[in-house]
């Protein structure tokens, strides 16, 4: 293997507006490589060099004479990428042309000698570079601590803002902050009491205390688990032809909630989901975690088909789906793109796909036709379980025999031969009176023995049933995995052994096992490979995901794609600093939340700044807090919370607001009922592929089998119709009105409380007048409905 070092592309190129301070040296890897990577390499790369030009190494450019070191004007490259006469520049042929600033970077790079480090091989991926230790004293990366900054995060952010001549927005109002924080962490609105307490808390650390209090709430897991379920396609129905419900899929959902509430270290959380059934310490929780492997759609019809082609096709689809999930959600790379050919954009050879497939080749949803829940048994319990199964069989056999004897007795009136002599006496039934005297005794004794045997069976059954059930699939030692040429199942090629991604150079990708390795061992080793701190992807991806949910956009705006097609970090140093701290903190998600939420950056108001917007319309530099719409679950939960109807029940089987009929496929017929069991938080609604709630749908709640790292925030007429006319909304408005009337008799006070419960502040005089008008000409319930439909309620700022 040629000795190459991957280029660390901590790109300063940010949404095409690269600008390098005039006094700053051009650094190839930092400044130039990202430009080539983003705009040129798609066509000009090794093995696929359009016009016979490859930019994989520096040789190509020099040999072809495109670059004359020291002479930008004499370098053809500059002419190619510079627009002339208002025409589009000749290169790049497709995509966005280079900005003036980018051309200037190239010009200066050539002027300085066009240095291309010998070992710099493109395309390397910024995300594959080691996590760089960041020195907080480096003025290039961070600002000095100031009275504004409260966390190191702020110094990184401020640095980038100042580079662009921008300032952060002022701190948000306390009432805004508590509303934003509670929705963000717990997915619920603050109560008027909570708002008042915080607004009046004069302690210096009032904010930190509030953050800690919310971080300790069990609702944290309920809120943040949905973010995770979104990217691991948690489904409580099969999808495909039958879309049958999965009544025992919920333990995984509770596992995720519990893990987040307990602040389970993220590396352990990931290992459990990949190999928790085979990786010590094996617990019920760690076994349930492996539901993640089989949570995707299940093609029941293909499983029962007699066609071998069809079975194989479906099996490969299932594995692709699993590799998609693990690749994108945990590693941030589209490993699935390499099923048929080497990845077109990222350094993932086709062989890597099949190596990772080999890791999971032994994971199946079902062996025969049905995908069923099964008891969750640790290895020790499994031994006991098997013994109990034997015991049950034996006890059932005894019982069956006794019943047979009893039946024979009934039929003939003659006791069957018995091992034990029957005592005499006792009462008899009329029919048995016709038989011998001993019959009655025999019968009575037999009945006693039957009762005993029944008791015996019941005891063992109860013991067997006491184990939790979950949908964790089955494991089988597979035949060696082979690479399919062009992904074609009819073209098997070389066998491959289980391994990690070869492009992660910090770690040996080979896991030290051969193609016949034990199924469990493959997953154990892969789980360690994924969570090894030197793996640069895992920590970066989760840190960015968490950032994404707090700010609405990640430092990398494509949370599941850290490949060449995805976004580049807006604050690369910050991302690495956070990732390194995260690992140092023992992969603690709560520490990460705390670090972000106690920053001045997060506490900025959403105040608009036209100048900042003209420089950075998307607010990637974080000159304010970007307002956002509540997501689907939060809208529903917030209405229930405000109306006082939200059920406090945590965890357990999902609520099912529907009936079903089966006609080969399962049809879900929705109903809307106000009973407490249906007033639970939305995360407890069964996550169905069909049978989804139209109101949640209209609020961009995705189908569970779609990997959704980033919820959309659409605003549509159908959404408006749903919020106006859904009987759920109308009922919550009615319940809220009743609640307000019970609490206060004065309409103005009712209005005040309504504003507090829905918007988190007191109404102003205009609001009061308008509200009073609605109560006067319509009623309080109508006013509650108005508030539930209002932009202010639906928006966080």
């Amino acid at each position, binding site marked *: 293997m040629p000795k190459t070092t991957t280029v660390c592309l901590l790109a300063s190129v940010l949404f095409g507006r690269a600008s390098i301070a005039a006094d700053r040296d051009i650094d190839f890897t930092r400044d130039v490589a990202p430009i080539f990577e983003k705009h040129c390499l798609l066509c000009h790369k090794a093995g696929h060099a359009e016009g016979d030009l490859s930019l994989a190494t520096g040789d190509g450019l020099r040999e072809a004479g495109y670059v004359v070191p020291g002479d930008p004007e004499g370098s053809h490259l500059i002419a190619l990428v510079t627009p002339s006469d208002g025409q589009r520049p000749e290169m790049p042929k497709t995509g966005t042309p280079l900005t003036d600033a980018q051309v200037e970077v190239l010009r200066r790079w050539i002027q300085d000698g066009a240095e291309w480090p010998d070992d710099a091989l493109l395309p390397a991926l910024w995300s594959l570079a080691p996590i760089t230790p960041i020195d907080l004293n480096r003025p290039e990366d961070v600002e000095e601590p100031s009275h504004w900054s409260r966390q190191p995060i702020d110094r990184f952010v401020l640095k980038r803002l100042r580079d662009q001549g921008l300032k952060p927005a002022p701190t948000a109002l306390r009432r805004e902050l508590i509303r934003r924080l509670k929705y963000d962490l717990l997915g619920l609105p603050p109560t008027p009491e909570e708002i008042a307490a915080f607004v009046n808390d004069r302690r210096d650390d009032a904010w930190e205390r509030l953050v800690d209090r919310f971080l300790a709430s069990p609702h944290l897991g309920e809120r943040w688990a949905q973010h995770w379920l979104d990217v691991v396609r948690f489904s409580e129905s099969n999808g495909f*032809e039958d879309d049958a419900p999965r009544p025992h899929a919920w333990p995984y959902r509770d596992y995720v909630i519990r893990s987040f509430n307990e602040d389970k270290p993220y590396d352990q959380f990931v290992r459990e989901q990949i190999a928790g059934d085979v990786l010590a310490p094996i617990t019920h929780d760690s076994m349930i975690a492996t539901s993640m492997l089989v949570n995707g759609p299940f093609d029941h019809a293909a499983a029962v088909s007699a066609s071998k*082609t069809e079975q194989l096709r479906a099996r490969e689809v299932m594995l692709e789906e699993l590799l998609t999930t693990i690749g994108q959600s945990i590693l941030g790379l589209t490993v699935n793109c390499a099923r048929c050919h080497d990845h077109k954009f990222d350094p993932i050879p086709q062989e890597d796909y099949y190596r990772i497939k080999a890791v999971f080749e032994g994971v199946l949803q079902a062996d025969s036709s049905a995908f069923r829940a099964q008891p969750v048994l640790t290895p020790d319990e499994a031994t006991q379980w098997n013994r109990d199964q034997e015991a049950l069989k034996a006890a059932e056999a005894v019982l069956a025999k006794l019943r047979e004897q009893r039946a024979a007795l009934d039929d003939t009136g003659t006791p069957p031969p018995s091992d034990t002599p029957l005592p005499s006496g006792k009462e008899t039934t009329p029919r048995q009176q016709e038989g011998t005297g001993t019959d009655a005794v025999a019968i009575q004794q037999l009945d006693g023995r039957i009762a005993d045997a029944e008791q015996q069976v019941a005891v063992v059954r109860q013991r067997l049933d006491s184990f939790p059930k979950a949908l964790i699939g089955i494991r089988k030692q597979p035949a060696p995995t082979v690479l399919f040429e062009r992904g074609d199942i009819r073209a098997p090629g070389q066998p491959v052994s289980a391994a990690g991604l070869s492009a992660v150079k910090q770690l040996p990708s080979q896991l030290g096992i051969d193609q016949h390795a034990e199924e469990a061992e493959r997953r154990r080793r892969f789980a360690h490979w994924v969570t090894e701190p030197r793996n640069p992807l895992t920590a970066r991806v989760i840190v960015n995901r968490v950032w994404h949910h707090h700010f609405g956009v990640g430092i990398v705006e494509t949370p599941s794609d850290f490949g060449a097609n995805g976004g580049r970090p807006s604050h690369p140093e910050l991302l690495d600093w956070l990732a390194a701290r995260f690992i140092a903190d023992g992969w603690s998600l709560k520490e990460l939340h705390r670090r972000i939420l106690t920053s001045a950056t997060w506490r900025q108001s959403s105040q608009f700044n036209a100048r900042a917007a003209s420089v950075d319309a998307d607010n990637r530099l974080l000159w304010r807090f970007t307002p956002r719409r509540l997501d689907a679950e939060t809208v529903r939960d917030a209405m229930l919370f405000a109306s006082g109807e939200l059920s406090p029940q945590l965890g357990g089987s999902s609520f099912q607001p529907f009936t079903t009929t089966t006609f080969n496929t399962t049809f879900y017929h929705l109903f809307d009922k106000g009973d407490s069991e249906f007033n639970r938080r939305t995360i407890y609604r069964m996550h169905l592929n069909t049978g989804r709630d*139209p109101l949640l749908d209209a609020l961009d709640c995705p*189908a569970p089998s779609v990997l959704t790292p980033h919820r959309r*925030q659409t605003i549509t007429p159908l959404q*408006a119709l749903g919020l106006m006319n859904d009987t759920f909304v109308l009922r919550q408005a009615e319940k809220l009105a009743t609640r307000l009337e019970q609490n206060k008799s004065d309409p103005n006070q009712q209005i005040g409380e309504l504003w507090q419960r829905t918007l988190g502040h007191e109404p102003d005089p205009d609001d009061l007048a308008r509200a009073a008008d609605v109560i006067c000409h319509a009623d309080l319930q109508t006013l509650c409905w108005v508030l539930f439909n209002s932009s202010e309620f639906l*928006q966080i700022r």
Partner: protein
Amino acid sequence: MRGTDHQRQPYDEATAMRDDDATTISQTPLLRRHFLGDAALGTSAIALAWLLERDARADTQQPVAHFAPQAKRLIHIFSPGGVSQVDTFDYKPELERLDGQPLTGKGDIDTFFGRPGNLRKSYYRFARHGQSGQWVSKLFPHLAKCVDDLTFIKSMVTKSSSHTPACFQMNTGFTMNGFPSLGAWLSYGLGTENEELPTFVVLPDPRGLPNGGSNNWSQGFLPAQHQGVAFRTGGNGPIAHLKTPASVDVSHRRIGVAALLAMNRDVATAHPDEDALLARVRAYELSARMQASIPEAVELDDETAETRRLYGVDHPAIGGSARNFLLARRLVERGVRFVQIFNGGALGSPRINWDAHEDVRRNHDNQGIQLDQPCAALLTDLKRRGLLEDTLVVWSSEFGRTPFTEAKGSGLGRDHHPDVFTTWMAGAGLKPGISYGESDEVAYKPAVNPVTVYDFHATILHLLGIDHERLTYYHNGIARRLTNVHGHVIQDILA
């Protein structure tokens, strides 16, 4: 209502122009729009609020150029279950000769249920029809009269012999759950012609929903507004939430709506930079108009007796199906971009779709009657109204059926067959009255010009003015396409 609002530019000049001057369409960039706010809050100038979509990447990666569309709208008649090609449109005299003999010389036979019987000639007699002389079986006496307007493809192949993956492929291009359907792609790529109606309407078979229900018209990873809106056939109004519930006092609602709009306008005024707030004001206004325009569109009372007879609306056996076909015409007339008619429901028993495992004749008789007259009426009606000139009508199943029987039960059924089957298209931009591609002598494999589902989709998009390679949406690392990385436009069937 359509076309009354000419203030919709600048985000959508093309739509505004389309109403006035169809010739300008060729300069139209594909309609991927940035939402443009309007400080004055004149809502007529606010861009289609429901197009607000906070994902810059989606916009930046959109194609900016395409070509003149032949078709402005699409009707897809989907006959789930697997329609037998040799019993409908693909006439195979050789099967008559080989009737009762095993199929040989074609390699391993690997069917879905694994019990291949002997070759079986068509259960129906075939005849040539129209000036084009195309073959149609006796199953479709009405459609047979339309053959001069049909463009057959007789060499279709698909990937899976299992219904749902094959249905997914026909409807979304992929055999997996979770990909956007053709209609969602069109909604995303072309936008709407009438913002008061959904862009993509699904008309499920009145006998029941298909397997996978809404998965068949899912928007997948596209934004929610591109999801197909399935119109209900029952009494609760065509779509959820359209009617104000009876429990709501009308005068209270009016007062509430006024207060709501005022509040939302105030907030929008206070935050002129936030598009979402303007969009919501607009969305509520539009939703109110939808409450009138959707019921109007589905009301058939103003159709003439002749039209109702043509479709068979009052025919006791096929009335439900006929209403769907008539409704499709009304919807495309009103600017709905894509209507998908389901001619068949789920796979249960008794059969309400084309899955003829037990008895082809009995099954196809029952299903054919639901399709034949209403579909022929739709083609006739579109044509006489001049709508066929810029409407594309497409018929397909998810796959065909084996030319041999299934050796179980009565032995009168046929198994699933993904390796070759027939579809047809009609209308805008096509060479009518022709047949493209051929199956082999027994309709087991393609013989000439195999056509994949990718090609089929690429051609449909092409007719609608879209380059299938450039209609992309970034999702998790990939610029996704309806046609994945495949597909060629079938040039030979284009006019």
